[in-house]
Structures are given as C-alpha cells and as structure tokens.
C-alpha cells in the first residue's frame, strides 16, 4: 500500500491521462482459512485451482444469463471507458469498465469460445495463469459494483455482474477477500455485520433512549423483539453505533413515535446489509435474507420497513421476494419491504408529523444518490421514486437545499468510492481516489451555492464520506443521514407523551394485537 497522495480536485469528471498499472499494487487482504471455511469455501488456494476456476466459470455461465450475454456482447465501443469513478480517480486503464471486463473475457474466450480456443492471438484470449488470477484479485476488488458503466453501455453490460462472478470463482478456489467473508460469517452466527449479540444490542438501544430523553425530555422508545408489532424495521447495524448513522436511527424512532406506529427491531435479524451480494453468492445471500423472513414471521409483524442503506435496499427491494419469499404472510395492502423515506414522506403528506424546518437552517444541504438505490432499485410506486422520496423528505424538513450538477446525480450518480465490499482500511488509497469525482461535484456546489452538508441514505456512503471528506478538505461531519435532518426538525412536545404511551404501547403488543394475530 504505502504512500499515496489525495488527488487534487478539478472540474468534475475530467478524463485523466492513462496511467498504466498505477493501481496494480492495490489488493485487499486475503480471507483467513477459518473465514473461508465458515462459508463453505476452501481455506486457501487449492492445488488444482485453475481447473476448479474454469469449472466454476462454466457453471456460472449456465446459471447467469447476464454473464453469458455480457461476455459475448461487448463491441469495444469505448462508451464506458470514462464512466468509472475508479478510473477517473486513478487513471489506471484497467479500471475502465470494459478493460476490467476484459480480464475475465480473455479467459472466457480461451476456454469457452471457438475463436479463443483456435485463434487466441486474434481475439486476445489468454490462459488463466497465476498472473491473470492475481490481476483478477486486484482489479475485481477495485470495482464497487456501482453499475454506473451499465447505464451508459449500449447493451447494458453491467461490470458489477462480472466482478461478482469473478469474486465467486475466487472464493471457490480459496482466494476470498477478508473483509466481506469475515463479515458474512458474523451475520450467520450473530445476525449482524458487527457481531453484536442481542444483549449488547439492547444495552446500546437503552443508552440511545436515554440520550434522546436527555435531549428532548420525552421517552422515545427503540423496541427490540416486540412480538406483534406492526412494523419490523430492518436497518444496517452501523445505525446502532456509527456517526452520522446513529442520528438517522434516532430520526426513524421519532417518526415512529410521533405517528404512533407500533414497531420493533429484531435481534435475530439486526442487519439489513447483505454482503453476500458483493461476493456474488446466491446461496449466502439467500441464507442471510431468510433471517429477515424468519424474524418477521416469529415476531408476527404486518410489514417490513428498511432503514437507510444502499445495497441492503437493493437486496430487499429486488431480491428478498426471490430469495426468501413469498412474503404473503405480511399485510398485502402496502408494499413490503418499504423504504424508510417513503414511509416518512407519506406521513408528512398526511400531516402526521409536526416539523419545524428552521431547526436545519444552519445547514445548506445537497443529496448524494447512492448507487444501489439510484441504479439498482426503486422507492415508491413509480420509476424514479428513488430520486424523489429522499429529496422530498429533505425538502420537507430543510429550507436550504440544492442539487449537485445534473450529470452527477440521479442515475448518473458517482459512487462514494467505498461500496461493493471495499469499505476496508486495506483499500484506503483506492477509496480516497475513487471518491474524487463525487468530491469535485460537491466542491462545485460548496463554492457556488454555499452547500455545507451532504445527506445520504446509505450506511456505506456515510462511513466512506466521513473518512475521505477530510482528505479533500471538507469537514468530517459534512455528511449527514436524511433521518438525522428529520430528527432535528421533528417537534415532539413533552405533553404528547402520556397519550402516546397508552395508544401506541411500544413496549409490547396489546392483548388486542395478539388476538388479532391469532385469528389471522
């Protein structure tokens, strides 16, 4: 890793000069044997790894149409070459999406196509050698699976699909990545990425309840494992301890409180994140998703709401029904899972929340669209709702809001630089450089429009920005949770509290609720 410099900010999205191999040294730590074996992968690189890798590759080609079609379909038009934030931030040509794909495509051609078997020199086919495997490990861990390239490719070629497949192959020959695999292991055992046991979680929530009480002198509850609650909130575990995530969690709690929603967290499924997506493992992803289903069934909730997390929302919105569905035991009159910003905005529209926008007047906000929400899912009923709802919530609770440049938001948004299982210290140089395009767009509105804070709805984005923003000269707390803004603005009067407790009874299900459930 060694020394590196934070890139100078420029006009955003200026295409860099090619700097071949400038990131060839950047690799994440390899997973230790026990972390591999916990997930059923070989502990270390197996002897016949080449044979095994090709075998797995062949299997994936029959299981994933995306991989099959994308291996064949690229015409090398170059449209994607300047779209990846890691290329823009590093200049390493292997970070151009098509070049990243080609690392896998050359092996595909060699082993699975007529042209590559008989005329490898003509089509650039190559054997899967140790050097090639090493390149895979390097550059498929420089892809945050943000899918920006896929928006611009005339065939929709999604490099995320390819890096997921590459990581899956590497896992199966014993060359997994430490950060992701260690975390997935923790979820299987303890239910969350942090490895936080139920008791510790309850203690954390108790502390938070106290903090809220000290702040507003109203008892706002953070219920855990309440059977018969209406809403199960599934949120990234970072919301329980990290800044500014935790302020978002307080925001959700206040929203539930003021709207008299009976809700609960689950200690069994205390994690919305599903890192198995990053390693392309359907099987692991399914096991993690099934925890949510089980928690929802055991608690007998009516609906599921998902907190601020990008890839988790992708998994929840797009994959849960496939992986762990059908969710026919939930209330079918509202969509589940529902995103917390949609949940909150609907309450705002119904006039159920009392808001004082001026509480956020010390800030001028902008919003960072997180890749997995922007390009890989939807919020609400209409296409593009993923852009609307978070902004609508922000604008309902803040007076000062301004968007960043149009070609850096919505579906064109730039990744924070830490997504896709790369949010680890061993990839810090990559993370800092990959954040450059977003930092430049932010800098532009900071200088021209006096933006002071950037809101986000993704746990990874928030952690990444808190870490890299200071390197670019921004304040560390320049990134905020959307529900942190809601929390600031929401007005909860101390006298409401008595009524609330009787009506909502957040501490446990009422007899009525239990009866209802039993009848159902």
């Amino acid at each position, binding site marked *: 890793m060694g020394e590196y410099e934070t890139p100078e900010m420029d006009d955003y999205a200026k295409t860099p000069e090619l700097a071949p191999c400038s990131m060839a040294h950047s690799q994440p730590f390899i997973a230790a044997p026990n972390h591999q074996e916990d997930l059923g992968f070989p502990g270390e690189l197996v002897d016949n790894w080449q044979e095994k890798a090709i075998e797995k590759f062949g299997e994936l080609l029959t299981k994933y149409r995306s991989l099959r079609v994308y291996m064949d379909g690229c*015409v090398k038009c170059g*449209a994607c070459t300047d779209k990846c934030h890691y290329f823009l931030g590093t200049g390493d040509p292997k970070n151009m999406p098509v070049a990243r794909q080609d690392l896998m495509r050359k092996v595909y051609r060699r082993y699975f196509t007529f042209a590559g078997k008989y005329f490898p020199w003509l089509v650039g086919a190559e054997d899967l050698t140790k050097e090639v495997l090493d390149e895979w490990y390097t550059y498929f861990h420089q892809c945050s699976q943000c899918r920006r390239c896929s928006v611009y490719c005339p065939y929709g070629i999604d490099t995320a699909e390819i890096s997921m497949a590459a990581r899956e192959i590497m896992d199966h020959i014993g060359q997994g990545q430490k950060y992701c695999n260690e975390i997935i292991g923790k979820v299987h055992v303890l239910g969350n990425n942090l490895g936080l046991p139920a008791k510790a979680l309850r203690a954390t929530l108790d502390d938070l309840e106290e903090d809220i009480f000290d702040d507003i002198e109203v008892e706002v509850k953070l219920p855990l494992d309440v059977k018969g609650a209406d809403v199960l909130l599934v949120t990234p575990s970072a919301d329980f301890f990290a800044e500014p995530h935790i302020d978002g969690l307080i925001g959700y709690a206040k929203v539930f409180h003021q709207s008299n929603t009976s809700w609960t967290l689950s200690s069994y499924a205390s994690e919305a994140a599903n890192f198995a997506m990053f390693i392309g493992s359907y099987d692991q992803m399914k096991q993690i998703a099934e925890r949510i289903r089980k928690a929802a069934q055991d608690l007998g909730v009516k609906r599921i709401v998902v907190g601020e997390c990008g890839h988790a929302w992708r998994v929840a919105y*797009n994959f849960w029904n496939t992986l762990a569905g*059908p969710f026919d035991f939930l209330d079918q009159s509202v969509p589940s899972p529902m995103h917390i910003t949609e949940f909150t905005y609907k309450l705002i529209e119904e006039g159920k929340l009392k808001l004082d926008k001026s509480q956020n007047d010390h800030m001028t906000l902008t919003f960072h669209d997180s890749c997995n929400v922007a390009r890989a899912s939807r919020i609400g009923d209409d296409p593009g709702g993923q852009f609307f709802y978070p902004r609508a919530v922000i604008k309902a609770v803040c007076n000062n809001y301004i968007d960043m440049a149009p070609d850096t938001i919505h579906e064109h948004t730039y990744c924070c630089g830490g997504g896709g299982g790369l949010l680890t210290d061993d990839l810090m140089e990559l993370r800092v450089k990959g954040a450059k395009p977003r930092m430049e767009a932010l800098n532009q509105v900071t200088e021209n429009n006096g933006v002071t804070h950037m809101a986000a709805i993704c746990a990874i984005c928030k952690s990444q920005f808190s870490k890299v923003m200071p390197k670019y000269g921004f304040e560390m707390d320049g990134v905020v949770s959307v529900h942190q803004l809601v929390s600031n603005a929401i007005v909860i009067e101390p006298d409401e509290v008595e009524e609330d407790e009787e009506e909502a009874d957040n501490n446990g299900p009422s007899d009525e609720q239990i009866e209802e459930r039993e009848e159902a």
Partner: protein
Amino acid sequence: MLTTIYAILFYVATLIFVGGLAYKIRTYFVTPAPLKIATTPAPTTTGGVVFRMAREVALFESLFKSNKWIWLFGYVFHAALALVIIRHLRYFIEPVWTWVVLAQPFGIYAGLAMVGALAGLWFRRFAVDRVRYISGLSDHLMLAMLIAIGVSGLAMKFVSKTDIVAVKAFTMGLVTFDWQPLPTHPALLIHLGLVALLMIIFPFSKLLHAPGVFFSPTRNQVDNPREKRHLAPWAAKLETKAGE
C-alpha cells in the same frame, strides 16, 4: 468453377450464420437470469420494457447518453447499413417491391455514409488513447473488413461497373437452387467473398451484440420484484421446506 466455389461458399456461410446464431440465441434463451437486475429507473410493465428496448435498438439511447461522437458514428453506420441492406434486397426478389425500388437512391448515399462512419469509428481506435487501449487485433480487423466490403461495393457503382443483371441471375440462382454464372469482376469477388466471411464469423464474434442486446437483463427486465416473485429453475431447487 468460380461460380461453384462462390455458390458453395454462400451455402456454407448461410448454414453457419443461421445455425451458429440459432445456437447462440438458444443458449441465451435457456440461461436463466436468477435475479432482478434491471438498471433503474426501469419500466414497471412489459409494454414499458418493449418501449425501452425499442429506444435502445432504434435510437441507441444509452449510447447517446454516454458519448455523442461514438453515438454519431455508430448510429450513422447502423442506419446506413440498414438502408444498404434494403437496397440489396433487389438482388433477392423478383419483381422488386415498390418500396425497395424507392429506397434505391438512398442506398447509394447510405453506402458512402457507412464507409465514412466506419472510418470515424476506426479513427477513434487510434486517436483516443482509452479506446486504443481496449482495441484488439480482431477489433481492427473487423472494421477493416467492413470498410473493405463497403468500398468494394461502392467501387462497382462509381469506379468500374459490373453486370448487375448477371449478378442478380447468380443470386436468384442461389435462392432457387438453379445456379447461374457469376460475373468475374474483381471488386464483386472481393465484395461477395468478404460478405460470406462476415456471415461465417458472425456467430463467433462480438457481432453477437446484435441478438445479445435483446437478452440483456439490465435492459429487458420489468421492474416489479415485489409484486411478482421471480425464481429461476436452478434457484427453485434451493428452496427449503415452504413457509419454514
């Protein structure tokens, strides 16, 4: 002799083209897409997806978002190619349909535009360092071949005419299995030879982008994962006891 060689060449080329393409399309068709991965915002109905795909195929919408130069050259090339193919229909039908007759003059301009656009695309492969980096030998050769096809075709129009009545007799003879002599015009032989070669390599090359685009899950999926459970056959086998 020459007639026999070219006749057989075209039958073989057609077989490989059709058979190879059918095989590839079948592979794409039977390979499931286990997860919903549409690039969003995506249409929420099948009609919407058809419309999205139509924009993609007829207008190159994504490419337009991406890079105006590539779009311009790419679009002109494909549109011109379509017109040129329409112009060539006259060699395969008798009597020639009126709209094909009407399209004839456009076909000529299209031929010129096609070669120009291909030259533009090839120029980018040298001039833009990013595109140069990703271009392989086969990418250059593909463009060279397409340009050679275009130029040899135009040469017969503008430089040295060939006997197109005889050419038509030859092509119609191929279709009706009643071989007629092929004129031995050098540009014609090059032209036809390269077209046959193009047909042969089609199913083995990046030209598969043509059928591939229709199978791209990021573009052809309906955005309705919560409403409709999407389950691939191999994934269904992983399902544990229902409702557990």
